C-alpha cells in the first residue's frame, strides 16, 4: 500500500510518501523557520500564507523523489489537528482536493499520533509501551496496548516543556527556537544554580510554569543586582531540572504498566541531554527515540500513523472533513 501524507499544522509544509507504513520513499519538508525567526516565534497568519505558496511544489517534489505518480497512491493521510487552524486548513484542503482529483480515499490523522509513529520508522513498536510526548505544545505520557490505541495517562498542567525552553531562551536573549540553543549551551556548562524539584498532584502529570518562573525571576534578580550570569551554567541547571522531571514521570509509568518499551516523541526528542538520560535510566526496557530528522514536524510520521489508523479501523473520511486546533488523541 502506498500512502501519501500531508502535514501543515504549524510552520513546516511537508508531504511524504511511504510503502506499507514502513519504507519512506520521500519526505519533503519546507521549513518556514527563517521567516518566523525575526518575530521570536511562529506568526499564525504568516504561516498560513507560506503554506499556500509552497504546498503544490512540495506535493510535486514528494511524488518525483518517490519515483511514483498520483495514480500509484492508495491512501491520502493528512494532519487534522491539533495545531494552528489556518495552517491546518491549507493542508487539509490541499489533501482533499488531491484525493478527490485522483479518486483516492483520505484519512485525517492526529498530529501527536504522528509524532508517536515516528518511532515505527526505524524500530518496531512492542506493546504495552509508554510514549513520552514532548514538544513546544505538548508534554504527555501515553499508554499504548496495541497499534493505534492511545490512553493518556497524564499531561502538563501548564506550560509544555518546549514552551519553557523557548521562554527561558527569550529572557536570556538567546533567540528562537530555544530548545536547541539551550541544549547546546548546556552541554558546555555545569549545574551550579539551584533549581526547584517539580511536584504535581497527579502521578503522571507535568508542570513547567514553576521551573520557568524560578529561572526567569533568578535572571531578573541577578540583572537588578548587576551580578554576572553564567549562561552556560544556567542553561545546564535549567535543562537538568526540566529533563529530570520527564525521566521521573516516565520511569513511574513504565514501572506501573510493566511496559516493554519507552518511546520518546515530539520536537524535544531531539534534545541531546534527554536522549542520553533516557539511555541511562531505562536500561531494563527497549528505548526508541526517533532519528533527528523525524523529531520535528514532518509528513513521514503522519503517513506511518495514517497507515496504522487505516489498518486498525478500515475507516475513511469524507470530503467534509475539517481541521481542529484542539483535538483529543482518541478522536
Amino acid at each position, binding site marked *: 500500500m502506498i500512502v501519501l501524507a500531508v502535514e501543515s499544522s504549524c510552520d513546516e509544509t511537508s508531504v511524504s510518501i511511504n510503502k506499507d507504513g514502513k519504507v519512506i520513499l520521500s519526505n519533503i519538508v519546507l521549513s518556514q523557520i527563517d521567516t518566523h525567526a525575526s518575530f521570536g516565534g511562529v506568526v499564525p497568519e504568516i504561516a498560513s500564507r507560506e503554506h499556500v505558496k509552497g504546498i*503544490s511544489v512540495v506535493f510535486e517534489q514528494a511524488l518525483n523523489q518517490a519515483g511514483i505518480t498520483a495514480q500509484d497512491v492508495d491512501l491520502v493521510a493528512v494532519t487534522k489537528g491539533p495545531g494552528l487552524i489556518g495552517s491546518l486548513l491549507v493542508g487539509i484542503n490541499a489533501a482533499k482536493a488531491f484525493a478527490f482529483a485522483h479518486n483516492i480515499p483520505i484519512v485525517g490523522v492526529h498530529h501527536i499520533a504522528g509524532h508517536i509513529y515516528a518511532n515505527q520508522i526505524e524500530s518496531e513498536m512492542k506493546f504495552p509501551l509508554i510514549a513520552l510526548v514532548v514538544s513546544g505544545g505538548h508534554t504527555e505520557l501515553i499508554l499504548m496496548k496495541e497499534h493505534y490505541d492511545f490512553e493518556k495517562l497524564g499531561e502538563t498542567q501548564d506550560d509544555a516543556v518546549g514552551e519553557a525552553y523557548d521562554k527561558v531562551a527569550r529572557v536570556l536573549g538567546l533567540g528562537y527556537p530555544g530548545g536547541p540553543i539551550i541544549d547546546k549551551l548546556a552541554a558546555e556548562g555545569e549545574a551550579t544554580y539551584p533549581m526547584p524539584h517539580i511536584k504535581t498532584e497527579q502521578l503522571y502529570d507535568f508542570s513547567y510554569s514553576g521551573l520557568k518562573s524560578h529561572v526567569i525571576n533568578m535572571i531578573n534578580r541577578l540583572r537588578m543586582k548587576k551580578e554576572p550570569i553564567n549562561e552556560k551554567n544556567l542553561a545546564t541547571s535549567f535543562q537538568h531540572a526540566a529533563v529530570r522531571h520527564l525521566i521521573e514521570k516516565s520511569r513511574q509509568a513504565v514501572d506501573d504498566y510493566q511496559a516493554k518499551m519507552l518511546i520518546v516523541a515530539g520536537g524535544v526528542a531531539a534534545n541531546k541531554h534527554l536522549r542520553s538520560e533516557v539511555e541511562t535510566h531505562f536500561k531494563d526496557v527497549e528505548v526508541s527515540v526517533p532519528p533527528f530528522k523525524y523529531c520535528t514536524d514532518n509528513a513521514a510520521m503522519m503517513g506511518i500513523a495514517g497507515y496504522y489508523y487505516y489498518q486498525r479501523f478500515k475507516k475513511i473520511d469524507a470530503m467534509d472533513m475539517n481541521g481542529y486546533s484542539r483535538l483529543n488523541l482518541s478522536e
Partner: protein
Amino acid sequence: MNKSLKRLVIDTATPYLYIALYEDNVLVDSIYQKGNNDHSVTLMDNIAKMFDKASWKIQDLAAVIVGIGPGSYTGVRIGVVVAKMFAWSHNIPVFKISTPALLASGADNGVIFAYVDARRNQAFGGVFEKTDETLVRLKADTYADLTTMLDSWTYDHPVNAVMPDLNVVLNSELLEAVDNVHDLSPVYLRKTEAERNQEQNK
C-alpha cells in the same frame, strides 16, 4: 467526440460559498450560499456532490477559475488551495480574478462599487463598470473604512453579495491566466499585523 468546454469557478473570499460549473458557457450547476466560517467543510463537499451529479471528473476540466481576494484571509485560502491542487493534479489551465471583480460581474449594469466586509467597519472594495458583455476596472481594490467608501466614492450600485456571471468575466481583461500554477496565491492587500508592528518599530 465530446469537445465541450467544462469550467469550474470557485470563490471563498467572502462569507458566501460560490461554486459554479459551466459547460460551453452554459451554467450546469451552481451554489451561492452564505456560510458560517465553514468553507473548509463545505467547499470540497459540495464540489464532490456537484461533480458526481453532473458526472464530471476533475481531469475533464478545460479551466479552473478562482477568486483570489482580497477578502477573508482564511476563507480565500481554501478556494485558492483547492483550485491550485486541481490545476496542478491534472495540468489544467488556471485563471485568477479579483473577488470584488467577480462580485461586480453579477451586478446590474452600471458603475459598481463591489466590496467584501472586513472587521471593524473596514472593507476590501473596488469600482468597476459593468455592461451586458464585459467588466472593466475604474478603481483598484482597496482596504479602507467602509462608510467612507460608501459615502465618498462615485458609483451606481454597491454590491457585497451577488452570484457572479462567468460570461461577463470571460470577456473581461480582469481575468488573468496563471502561467505557473505553483505561483498561485491569494491577494491579501495587507501585510500581517506582526509585519506591520515590526515595520513600525524599526
